[in-house]
């Protein structure tokens, strides 16, 4: 027991104060919400940004848009543009209730004005106790890992009443990752059916929103919404834990 106490003193108390205090700082190279500086675009541009985008998230037609539901948050478009018209901000707040709200330049405050929280009745039911069954459906395990990290002492997800549970029978909803491979489509549907109503579905990561880098392959469905109705989209490849937490807390009305 004594060595454990000594170790505990050495390791210190590590749970972050967020959301009561400021969130942990993002690294300076963090690629958060992308910004398109359309004023820097020049006429007759060869649209190298569009060609460089691996998933067709970026559309160079006017107005230029980036679909965060398809975006891998990779450095390619920003690097391809000779006019520095595209950059990534450190804004980690990416989640939205509606798929159409994931398209930049849709303004963040415009999305927030709609409110990300569940309706009053659901919030009463789930706002203080949200149990989620995680279903990995063709994901690369990065979204799974950075969802799971929220349960570590640093983030301590359970202080918000949110927990990952072992069975869909214990759950209020699903947190889906991956593009939903054909081989997982039935398992996802059955898991969803095993959750009692009312239930919610959260799609975490670009794959779960649109199929991501695997989109349009015959081996995958293009995201969770092709099998189950989705209530919250959290973009990223993978999303930063803070992006996921921000989305979850908005959903249950703890912030925003």
């Amino acid at each position, binding site marked *: 027991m004594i060595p454990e106490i000594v170790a*505990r003193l050495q390791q210190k108390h590590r749970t972050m104060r967020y959301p009561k205090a400021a969130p942990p700082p993002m690294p300076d190279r963090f690629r958060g919400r992308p910004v398109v500086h359309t004023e820097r675009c020049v006429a007759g541009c060869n649209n190298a940004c569009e060609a460089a985008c*691996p998933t067709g998230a970026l559309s160079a037609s006017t107005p230029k848009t980036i679909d965060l539901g398809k975006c891998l948050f990779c*450095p390619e478009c920003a*690097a391809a543009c000779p006019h520095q018209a595209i950059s990534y901000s450190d804004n980690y707040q990416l989640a939205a209730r509606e798929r159409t709200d994931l398209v930049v330049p849709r303004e963040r405050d415009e999305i927030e004005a709609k409110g990300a929280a569940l309706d009053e009745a659901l919030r009463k039911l789930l706002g203080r106790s949200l149990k989620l069954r995680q279903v990995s459906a063709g994901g690369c*395990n990065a979204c799974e890992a950075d969802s799971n990290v929220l349960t570590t002492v640093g983030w301590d997800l359970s202080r918000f009443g949110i927990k990952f549970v072992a069975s869909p029978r214990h759950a209020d909803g699903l947190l889906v990752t991956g*593009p939903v491979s054909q081989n997982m489509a039935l398992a996802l549907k059955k898991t969803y059916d095993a959750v009692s109503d009312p239930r919610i579905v959260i799609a975490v990561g670009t794959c779960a929103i649109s199929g991501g880098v695997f989109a349009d392959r015959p081996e995958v469905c293009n995201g969770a919404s092709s099998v189950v109705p989705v209530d919250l989209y959290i973009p990223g490849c993978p999303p930063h834990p803070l992006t996921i937490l921000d989305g979850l807390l908005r959903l249950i009305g703890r912030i925003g």
Partner: protein
Amino acid sequence: MSAFPTDFVRLTNGQSVALDSVPVLDLECFQASIVAGVKGGCRVSALFGAASPQPDATRLYAVLADDNQNLLLAAAADVTGDAYPSLTRQCAQVHMFEREIAEQFGLRPEGHPWLKPVRYRRSWTDRDVWQRSADETILPAVGDFYRVDGEQVHEVAVGPVHAGVIEPGHFRFQCYGETVFHLEIALGYQHRGIEETLLGGPDARTIHLMETLAGDTSVAHATAYCQVSEALAGCAATARGQALRGIALELERMATHIGDIGALSGDVAYLPTASFCGRIRGDVLNMTALLCGSRFGRGWVRPGGVGFDVDAKRMTDLRRRLDACEKDARVAIELLWRTSSAMVRFEEVGAVPRAIAVELGLVGPAARATGLARDIRRDQPSGIFNTAQIPVATCKTGDVYARAYVRWLEIQHSIAFIREQINALPEGAARTSVTACASERFAVALVEGLRGEVCHVAITDASGRFTRYKVVDASFHNWPGLAYALRDEEISDFPICNKSFNLSYCGHDL
């Protein structure tokens, strides 16, 4: 000196050769050479099918690794028709490869002891080994499983959706009371068709597919791909780029190893190490994010070097964080070794004897835990490992304890390596431009990922496009090792055995 296949072409890690210099042997000679090579100590790094220029034929390619001589041996053979004699009974290492070829190309290995699909997907050709019609739905893990019969024998089926936040897979145990007689593992739920998508590349998607082959192994797979690209273009990454790739690879290893030790502690209900390590793993991921913006190293490794250079300030920050991490990890993990109630759950559980590890062709920490000094960074070095050495960590007992302890040794070696690289980072550019892939070449790259050998083989056509791109994740070699480790164990020890291997489902399923 050795009796190794002399009819195979010799190449080294990260090298390409003209496609016509890869000998197309008579099938019998090809198979005899594989068996002779494996008997002589080679490992089967890859065995895969591809289109053949001959009518009604499929071309099989084999890449053997001769670790003692730092050599790779490659050859091909044509199989005409839809069947060929299986090698599995003579060479267990090809078991899964032959099943994969059967599934992808509809070629039946005659005499294969357990011919089942690997990923439950349709054949790439119009042949199907299991005579399924084109409109028949293929359901994963549906089919025969190995069964043990007896009055008190019962079957336990688990998955694909598990209790934790993990990937899907199906496990079928044959139990007698608490004792597991046999475990069969059925995967394929994560199959996304990556090898097919890579055909005709490289294109804008290619590097991103590499980074999402297995999310926690992004750096190792991206590095293998970049080495293949550089070999096909006939150029090399910059010295600075190679050193930074080495840092990226070791950070990736550290993060997962620390997480694994924590998860193992959690599984035996020793919570201090579990909760400390969960947090420390995040600190390592944040070091990767400090250097490239992504906790998983996305966007960092690129053909020609790395996409993100470092400055002195960033290096100072990294060094400071590494010092703190080392101290925290040491306190957290040494606590575990000193706790006898935890150790008794690790020792003599899930043991894989060294001879079995050799026979199955296990790689990475699972192999090193049995005493096999097998590590690509030393045996088949490429990039920074050509000049910087990293000790090979081994244990002898081959059990859960050994697999955990090897990881702790490797964490310490990785920290020392990263420090060494920070102090002696080569000057110059972090990245150079890489020309297009040359036509009709054959290239192989091996990287020691956190689970062991990651093998990429590329074949290009007349216009330098991939006509075949083979990926073998370490997990493809090691899943049979986990199945073996469960024999005669208690079923309640499955979680710690599983975590002690920590294999990738998506890396296997592609």
